[in-house]
């Protein structure tokens, strides 16, 4: 693309002009290319190589040799199937919750507050405000707030939602809550960017053409905001599927809530099983890539504006 843009104004010129523009383009692209080679391609290749290693015959812990051992993949796929399923289940649930919570907020800020730009900016800042504090600290704070002797759990006990022997921390609900909370801004911002540009005259046209408010939403507003919904769900689903903080027992989870990220962390840092951790990472990447491709195809983004 970049090359075409530089050369297409003089397509019939001799090659000397093309050669002249070549170095400029390369120079402009170089920082990005070098960055990607060093910090994306190299670790990726190293990861794939590690994922195919076999244990050292000496049996020493943490020693492996280069091999083409595909059985690593089969092992992790079988051994960690519950964690894999849980990861995508959590990611799906948290993405849906984030969408349900974010859409009205983004609509309110992006559409209803248009006539008050100052309030609009303020509300938007509030959406981003949690980022000013490290998300580890925020998650630990939630751990305190939701702890077994917290007011929140007391209320759940007194209301009978939880039995006296049940608690909130360490449950699926707690992890999904934490994931939703931590990734909501990634959903709200793309939705806001999209809804900010929503042409309200189209909504008026809808009501003029006999659509009631519900139909205006489903037939006009929602289809028009699909690009925002798709980028928002991708920006939340992908990192959530790989998250290892919220589900960790040090934060909101327990041994029963571990996700792929948790297992990668454990294999890599505690069990020193590098091939297993790498194979799991590659597997996670592959599954996410497949799911995202399917999702984008199905939702027909190329068809939208």
């Amino acid at each position: 693309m970049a090359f075409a843009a530089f050369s297409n104004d003089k397509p019939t010129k001799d090659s000397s002009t093309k050669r002249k523009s070549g170095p400029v383009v390369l120079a402009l692209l170089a920082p990005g290319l070098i960055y990607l080679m060093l910090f994306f391609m190299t670790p990726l290749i190293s990861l794939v190589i590690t994922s195919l290693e076999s244990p050292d015959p000496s049996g020493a812990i943490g020693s492996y040799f280069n091999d083409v051992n595909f059985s690593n993949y089969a092992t992790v796929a079988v051994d960690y199937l519950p964690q894999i399923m849980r990861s995508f289940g959590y990611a799906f649930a948290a993405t849906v919750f984030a969408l349900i919570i974010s859409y009205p907020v983004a609509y309110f800020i992006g559409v209803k507050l248009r006539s008050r730009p100052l309030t609009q900016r303020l509300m938007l800042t509030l959406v981003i405000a949690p980022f000013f504090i490290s998300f580890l600290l925020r998650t630990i704070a939630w751990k305190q707030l939701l702890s077994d002797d917290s007011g929140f759990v007391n209320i759940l006990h007194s209301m009978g939602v939880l039995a006296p022997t049940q608690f909130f921390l360490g449950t699926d609900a707690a992890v999904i809550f934490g994931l939703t909370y931590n990734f909501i801004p990634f959903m709200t911002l793309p939705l806001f960017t999209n809804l900010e540009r929503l042409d309200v005259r189209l909504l008026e046209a809808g009501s003029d053409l006999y659509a009631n408010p519900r139909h205006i939403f489903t037939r006009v507003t929602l289809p028009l905001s699909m690009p925002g919904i798709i980028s928002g769900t991708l920006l939340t689903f992908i990192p959530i599927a790989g998250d290892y903080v919220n589900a960790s027992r040090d934060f909101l989870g327990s041994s029963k809530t571990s996700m792929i990220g948790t297992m990668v962390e454990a294999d890599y840092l505690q069990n020193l099983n590098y091939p297993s951790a790498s194979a799991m990472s590659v597997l996670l990447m592959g599954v996410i890539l497949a799911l995202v491709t399917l999702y984008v195809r199905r939702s027909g983004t190329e068809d939208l504006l």
Partner: protein
Amino acid sequence: MAENTKVAGADLELIDVRKDFPGFTALDDMDLHIPAGQFFALLGPSGCGKTTTLRIVAGLETPTQGQVLIGGKDITNSKPHERPVNTVFQSYALFPHMTVLENIEFGLRQRKISDYQKLAKDALSLVELSHLGERRPQQLSGGQQQRVALARALVNRPSLLLLDEPLGALDLKLRRQMQIELKAIQLEVGLTFLHVTHDQEEAMDMADIVAVMNKGRIEQMGAPEVLYDRPKTAFVSKFLGQSNLFIGEVVEKNPTSVSIEVGGNKITVAKKRAEKHTGKIAIGVRPEKVDFHESKPRLSADHIVVGPGEIIDIRFTGVSNQYLIDIPNVGQVTVFAQNIGKSPETELGAKVWVSWKIEHSYGLADLPDGTEEA
């Protein structure tokens, strides 16, 4: 179009409608009645309240007070989607995520009309765009989008079709063409059209009745030729076409006419063509009704002669020449002379007299802005 699609529109009535926005009044106790089947134009400068009127009729704006009736039924409190009204929006407001045909089908499908596909195709062929049904609106030109917007509204056979300056974004040639098509479609389908515009030529050209609005009120309403021939206020006189206005005290009155004196000249208006017969009044005449002469003309008593003055500007506009003549103590007079190749040998600075028939004078009810009341 199938024969049974010709339906009668309904009449629209606004009773005492008022709309206040923070800081100003957009509509000031407006009363309006548009008979069924008419092409009605609301004409006025921007900010006069014409678009607010249209939005109140469509239900997109709630009046502060007053009633809106369509076909005798009070719809003041109905939601927009409950009203038998469709709008062609100034921005067209076509749905970008739907094809042209889906846009046209939208209203029909909302009302669960079973043969929506056929009706939509018929509407598309009415505006001569059958070949573009599968395109997206943004792939069409402005004129084509305008026609899709028209088809999308018309296909619903509303009792009342609202047009919000839909031709504003088109170039002159296309606008002319669309004006003719729109008028033909209105005659064909027989609906009531309420057309909002600031283009006086467009209003006069298309509408059966024109209402001229100013500052949230209707200044004058009537057939275009009546409004043009006999404007009743200075605003209408100036907004609808051009006019020469003379202001003076009434000096002579007889049973059939009223005369004022301006800079030593007597200017007369037939009594039945004057709104006011005493005190300081304004008398006007249209520029094309005025002649000029290089010597003082001897004309019969039914003419007014004013002069002498000096030609200070000549403009060639194609079909006519526009002369600006400055007459001492009277002011500037504009004269349109048809460009038939034999206009008198006039040059800038020539000394001339102007004349017109008394029957072409009209007397206004008010004085132009900035004139001291006597």
